[in-house]
């Protein structure tokens, strides 16, 4: 099989980053060496950024983390547009993701912290005061049902009979 396996390798690792090369090779019908090369290339091209676990902290009672989505309106700046403002925001350690949106606000900022108080503090003291930020709306995430394509509350089970025609 001479065709490009990079996309398939990417899919398989996105589904389960713990798969070893041998398993991927068997699933794609290629050599382990081909898989190793594909992964090296994907890493080099930054198509694979890092290998992380998809976690569900709510499964642990002591998780004690609060997550919020902050809808930020900004005034785009001459020459830099939104990029410079986005940069000023995403550099903060507390900020987990920043996206530019089309709609009623400009930047969607996801933030994770230990308690609500520190999130409020972050918004008032760090975010709202940035030049160019005109308003913020903070919404707290109460419960997660699906994240990164993974359903966190499992409501379906395999109830197939053990042997069927």
């Amino acid at each position, binding site marked *: 099989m001479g065709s490009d396996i990079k996309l398939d390798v990417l899919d*398989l690792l996105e589904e*389960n980053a713990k798969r070893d090369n041998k*398993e991927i090779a*068997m*699933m*794609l*019908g290629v050599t382990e060496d081909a898989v190793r090369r594909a992964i090296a290339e994907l890493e080099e091209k930054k198509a694979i950024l890092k290998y992380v676990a998809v976690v569900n902290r709510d499964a642990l009672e002591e998780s004690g983390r609060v997550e919020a989505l902050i809808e930020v309106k900004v005034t785009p700046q001459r020459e830099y547009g939104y990029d410079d403002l986005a940069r000023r925001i995403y550099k903060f350690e507390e900020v987990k993701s920043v996206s530019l949106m089309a709609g009623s606000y400009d930047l969607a900022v996801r933030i994770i912290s230990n308690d609500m108080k520190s999130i409020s503090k972050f918004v008032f003291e760090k975010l709202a005061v940035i030049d160019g930020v005109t308003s913020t709306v903070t919404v707290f995430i109460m419960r997660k049902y699906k994240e990164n394509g993974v359903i966190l509350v499992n409501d*379906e089970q*395999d109830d*197939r*009979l*053990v*042997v*069927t*025609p």
Partner: protein
Amino acid sequence: MKMEDFVAKNVAEVPPSGIRKFFDIASEMKDAISLGVGEPDFVTPWNIRETAIFALEHGTTHYTSNWGTTELRREIAKYLDLRYGLSYEPGNIVVTVGASEALDLVFRAIIDPVDEILIPAPSYVSYMPGVRFAGGVAVGLETCEQEGFKLKAESIEKAITPRTKAIVIPYPNNPTGATMSREELSALREVIVKNDLLVIADEIYSELIYGIEHTSIASFPDIFPRCVVINGFSKAFAMTGFRLGYAAGPVPIVRAMVKIHQYSMLCASSMSQVAGLEALRHEMETGFAQVEKMRKSYDMRRRFIYQGLNEIGLSCFEPRGAFYIFPNITKCKMPSEEFCNRLVHEKKVACVPGTAFGDAGEGYMRCSYASSMENLKEALKRIAEFVDENS
């Protein structure tokens, strides 16, 4: 009379399904890994389930036409044309309670006492009993591993008698995973036409095919007018529990099938028909994205288990269809049934003995790879141990 004596002879004489027997054994082993499941491991896609729920909420709870709803039959006609180049009108199509009912109907619609029906072996468990319940005689056409479990014109020729009426063409095949290419099917046309056989093409696995394209034998102009195509929603759209299938074919045969269907079944479930309509429409609109995603996932597991079984020394032919693989277990020098019995008791892996699909399955077992990668990996490990200990 004893109660047993009330049972009709042609029913009593048909042996119980080998699958059923094995189900009883495997069910007792609570923590066994099962590679014995003959259905997708995907739950029905949500858009289909959601449509069925909506239909229920809005009172789609009545009988439909015996034939199935016109909308659904139109959509099936469109699908068969788009996918396999078969041009049917809704009047050629009957919607049934699974492809299983369609099989039963076609047997009952065409068989007079002792008519002979040719059936490749090994194959799906229902053909032989279906023929016998209808009063016919099932004649096995043995296929072999060396020939990829494909059907050959010579073996049809040899089995022909004046009573031969029809032939079942079941590809992609359960249990072997065998497929037949356009050329290979074409080679069967002459003997079929010459002997004036009706063709029953069971194509329930037509969407689950890897590395080749599915050809319906009905797509040959000389076979089309003598062919009943049977298909359904269970495998392609992971809708087994909906029990929804169909048959498409020449009007006189389909009419005869509908006659039986209207007196015995009346119609397929109305909410299932609505769900089936959504399945076809959605996939045709989205370029079969969901079907393709499932197909690809089976394909990867197929390659994995094929290489895995070969590596542990169970040679097997590479299946190109369905979600079964049929390894040769003769190196362990025990009958298939004993092999599978001991495998489930000693290693807690349930596979189905090849003999459940007819005597031609001796020396093989059927493994379904419609199971998680974790299960497949662990099952391979345990089968390897078992093979090591017994060869």
